[in-house]
C-alpha cells in the first residue's frame, strides 16, 4: 500500500505488511522510522534518476527495498541501473513498477461529463471490462523472475467504495501479481484519525486482503494453451486485452528470445512478430506437429506456402502443414473482439481449458502445478453483484472445493465429469473466488 500522510496506523490494524513511501515527497527519516516501528516492511518508490540517492537513504534506514517507477520510454536504461544498484546495495530489494495499470472496473456505455462534449465508449460488445490481466501476463514475461508489480490511478470518481478497493486487491491476488494500492487521501486521513466510517470501509477490504494473501503464487504457474509471439511487449495491445476478457488463457513470447521447445503444448500460436527465415522455419515445424498457427499481417514468402492454399474468406488463407495448419491473416487485426472470438472457435470445445456460463463479467485464470496438472482456478467478478456461475474445466477432477473472502475455505462443489471435462456450479461469486481442483 502506498502511503502519503505524515503518520500512519499500525500494520496489524491495517492488515497490510508492506508500505510504500514516495521518495519524491521526501520520505523523511522520521516517517521511515515510524513506519518500521508500526510494523511495516518499508519500500521507497522513486523515479530512475533519483534511484541512487533513494537507495542510499533506504539502506541507511533499514528499508526492505526500493521500487523504480519507470515509464516504458525509459526501460532501456533500467536494466543497467538495476544491476548497478543491486551490486551497490546487495541487501536491498530493487523492484520495477509498471505504472500502466488501470482501475479494474465494469463499464457501461453512457458517458457523462459536466459542461463538455462527450466521447464514444467501448468499441466492442457489452459489458466492457477494464482488467489488468493482459498487462500482468506481459509483465510476467518481460520482468522475469520478478513477480509483476503494477499500480494505477483511480479513474475520475468522487467516492471510492470498499468494493472498488476490494476489486483491485482481488484482481492482483487472482492474477498472482503485486499491486501498489493507492488509497485516496480522504481514506488515509480517516484511517489516521480513527474515523469510524473509514475503518468500516477498510475492514470490508481486509477480508479480500486476507483472501488474496493466501494465493499459491510461486508454487503454481498460469496454465495456457495459446501462445502470442510479438516483437515487443506492448501493455496497451487491444488483442491481448480481448483474449483476456474472453477467458482464453495465453502466454506472451518475444520473437527474438523464442525457443522452439517453449512452444510445445500450445494448441494455437498467434504470431504478430515480423518473421525472419529462422522463426518462420520454427513456425512451420510447430504447425507440422498439430498446432494451429495464426500469422497476422506477415507478408512474405514462407515454407508453409508450398502447400495448397485454401482461401477461407476475404481476410484469411489457410495452409495445411503436417498435421496442423497455418492461417495467414492478410492485414492487422481490424476488430480485436471478433479476433478473440475467432481464436476461441479455433480452439474448439475439445481444447478449451475453461469455459464459463453466465460469466460475462468474470475473468478466470487457471493455474497448473509443475507436473502441468491444472489445480487451481482464480476468479474475479468485475460486476460486484453476486453471480451464479457454471464452469467447465478440461480434465477429470474428483473433488472441487470453493473458497471466497466472505465464506472462507472451503465449500465442496459437485463435479460432473464427461468426455475429459469436469463441470460444476459456483453458487455465488461476488468479487473474488478460488476453486481448488483435485484429482485422484
Amino acid at each position, binding site marked *: 500500500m502506498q502511503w502519503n500522510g505524515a503518520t500512519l496506523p499500525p500494520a496489524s490494524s491495517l492488515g497490510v505488511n508492506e508500505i510504500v513511501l514516495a521518495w519524491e515527497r521526501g520520505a523523511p527519516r522520521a516517517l521511515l522510522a515510524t513506519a518500521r516501528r508500526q510494523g511495516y516492511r518499508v519500500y521507497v518508490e522513486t523515479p530512475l534518476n533519483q534511484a541512487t540517492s533513494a537507495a542510499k537513504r533506504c539502506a541507511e534506514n533499514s528499508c526492505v527495498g526500493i521500487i523504480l517507477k519507470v515509464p516504458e520510454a525509459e526501460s532501456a536504461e533500467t536494466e543497467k541501473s538495476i544491476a548497478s544498484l543491486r551490486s551497490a546495495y546487495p541487501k536491498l530489494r530493487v523492484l520495477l513498477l509498471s505504472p500502466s495499470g488501470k482501475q479494474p472496473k*465494469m*463499464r*457501461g*456505455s*453512457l*458517458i*457523462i*461529463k*459536466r*459542461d463538455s*462534449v*462527450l*466521447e*464514444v*465508449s*467501448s468499441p466492442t*460488445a*457489452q*459489458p*466492457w471490462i477494464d482488467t489488468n490481466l493482459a498487462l500482468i501476463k506481459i509483465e510476467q514475461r518481460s520482468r522475469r523472475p520478478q513477480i509483476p508489480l503494477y499500480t494505477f490511478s483511480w479513474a475520475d470518481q468522487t467516492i471510492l467504495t470498499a468494493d472498488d478497493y476490494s476489486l483491485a486487491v482481488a484482481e492482483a491476488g487472482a492474477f498472482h501479481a503485486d499491486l501498489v494500492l493507492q488509497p485516496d487521501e480522504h481514506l488515509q486521513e480517516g484511517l489516521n484519525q480513527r474515523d469510524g466510517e473509514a475503518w468500516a470501509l477498510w475492514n470490508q477490504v481486509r477480508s479480500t486482503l486476507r483472501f488474496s494473501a493466501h494465493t499459491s503464487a510461486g508454487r503454481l504457474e498460469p496454465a495456457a494453451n495459446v501462445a502470442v509471439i510479438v516483437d515487443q511487449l506492448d501493455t496497451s495491445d487491444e488483442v491481448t486485452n480481448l483474449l483476456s476478457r474472453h477467458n482464453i488463457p495465453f502466454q506472451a513470447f518475444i520473437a527474438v528470445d523464442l525457443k522452439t521447445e517453449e512452444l510445445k503444448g500450445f494448441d494455437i500460436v498467434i504470431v504478430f512478430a515480423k518473421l525472419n527465415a529462422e522463426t518462420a522455419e520454427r513456425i512451420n515445424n510447430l504447425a507440422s506437429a498439430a498446432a494451429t498457427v*495464426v500469422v497476422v499481417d506477415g507478408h512474405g514468402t514462407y515454407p508453409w506456402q508450398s502447400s495448397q492454399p485454401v482461401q*477461407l*474468406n476475404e*481476410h*484469411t488463407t489457410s495452409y495445411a502443414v503436417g498435421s496442423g495448419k497455418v*492461417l495467414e*491473416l492478410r492485414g492487422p*487485426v*481490424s*476488430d480485436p*473482439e*471478433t*479476433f478473440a*472470438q*475467432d*481464436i*476461441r*472457435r*479455433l*480452439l*474448439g*470445445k475439445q481444447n*478449451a481449458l475453461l*469455459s464459463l*456460463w*453466465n460469466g*460475462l*463479467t468474470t475473468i478466470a485464470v487457471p493455474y497448473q502445478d509443475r507436473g502441468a496438472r491444472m489445480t487451481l482456478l482464480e476468479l474475479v467478478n468485475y*460486476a*460486484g*453483484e453476486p453471480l451464479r456461475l457454471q464452469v467447465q474445466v478440461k480434465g477429470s477432477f474428483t473433488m472441487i472445493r470453493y473458497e471466497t473472502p466472505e465464506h472462507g475455505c472451503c465449500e465442496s462443489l459437485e463435479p460432473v465429469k464427461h468426455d475429459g471435462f469436469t463441470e460444476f456450479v459456483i453458487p455465488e461469486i461476488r468479487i473474488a473466488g478460488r476453486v481448488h481442483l483435485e484429482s485422484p
Partner: protein
Amino acid sequence: MRFDKRWAAALVVVILSVGSSAQSSDTPILVYKEKYIMGTVFEIAAYAESSEKASAAIDKAFQEIVRMDDLMSNYKPESALSRLNRSAHFHTQKVPPDLYRVIEQAVQFSRLSDGKFDITVAPLVNLWKAALSGDSMPSPSQRQQAEECVGYEKIELTPPDQITFRSSCMQLDLGAIGKGYAVDRAGEMLHSSGICNASINSGGSTILAMGSPPGQRGWLVHLRDPSHKIDPYVMLKDQSVSTSEQTAVSLLAPESAGHIIDPATGQPIDTRFAVSVITSWGTPSDGLATTLLLLGPEVGKSLVDGMSNVSAIWLSPKAEIETVNHGPEIFFGKQL
C-alpha cells in the same frame, strides 16, 4: 432474432449537465448508477432536487429490472419464462402479467412483420449460439429439426394471463424485446418516484430518454455508425432508441455464425447494416430494431410508413444510408 443483445452496438448518450460551479439550490442534481442485469450493464442517469431522491428512485428502478430478469431470463431455471418453456407444451400455463404482456406485444410484432420477428426462434438461436462458441456449424438436418419447432402462430394467448404452446418442442426467447420492456418498466418506476428527467440505457441496445437534462431540448444520443463516417444523432425527449446489428463477420473462419437468425431461412441473417429505431417507448423500439434489420431497408421502410412517431436509419460499414422519418429527425454530424 437475437438471443442476447449484448452484441448490439453501443449507442452513446451525450448528457449535457449543469456544471457544479453554476449550481444553485434549485439546480437539479444528476445521479448516475450502473448495475449488471440481464447479461448487460444497465445505466440510469436521473435528475432530482436531491441526490438522495434520485438515488432511491434509481435503486427502485434497478429492482424492477431485476424482477423483469427473474421473469424473462432463459438462463435462470426458475424464471417464469423457463417454467413456461418447460410446461406450456403439456398444459395451459398461467403466467405473471408482465410476462403475458411482453409475449403479447412480441406476437403483435410477428404479425406485423409476417413472422420475420419471432420469439419462438429459440431452438435455432441455440444451435447457432453453440456454433459461435466453438461447436461446428449446424448440419441441415439439425436446422430442419429446429425449424419445425418455430412459428409464432403456435403460441396461444388467452387473456388475461394464460399461454399454451401448440408445438411439442417450442421454446420462447425474449432476447429481442425483453430489455426494451425492462427499460419501460424502469422508466415507470422512476416516474412513480417523482423523476421526470432521466435516461435508462440497457447496454447500448435500448435507451429510454425521459424529459430532458436541465436547460436542454432533449437528450443527445449518438447512434451506431459502423462506417465511422456519418455520426448520426438524435435529440430525444420522452422517446426511446434501439439498435440492432448482426455479429461481426469472422476474420479467420470460412463461415460466420451470428446471433440474429432469420426464421424464414433458419440461418443467421447476412447483413452488414446496423439499424437504429426511434419510437415513444422501449418495447416497440427494441422489437422494431430487430424486425427492421431482418426486413432490410426496402421492406422495412414501407412497414414504418404505416406507423406514426417512428424514425429509423440503416447504416452500413461502407456508409450506405437509408432512413425513414415519421418521428424525431435524425441529424448527421459528418458529411460524406
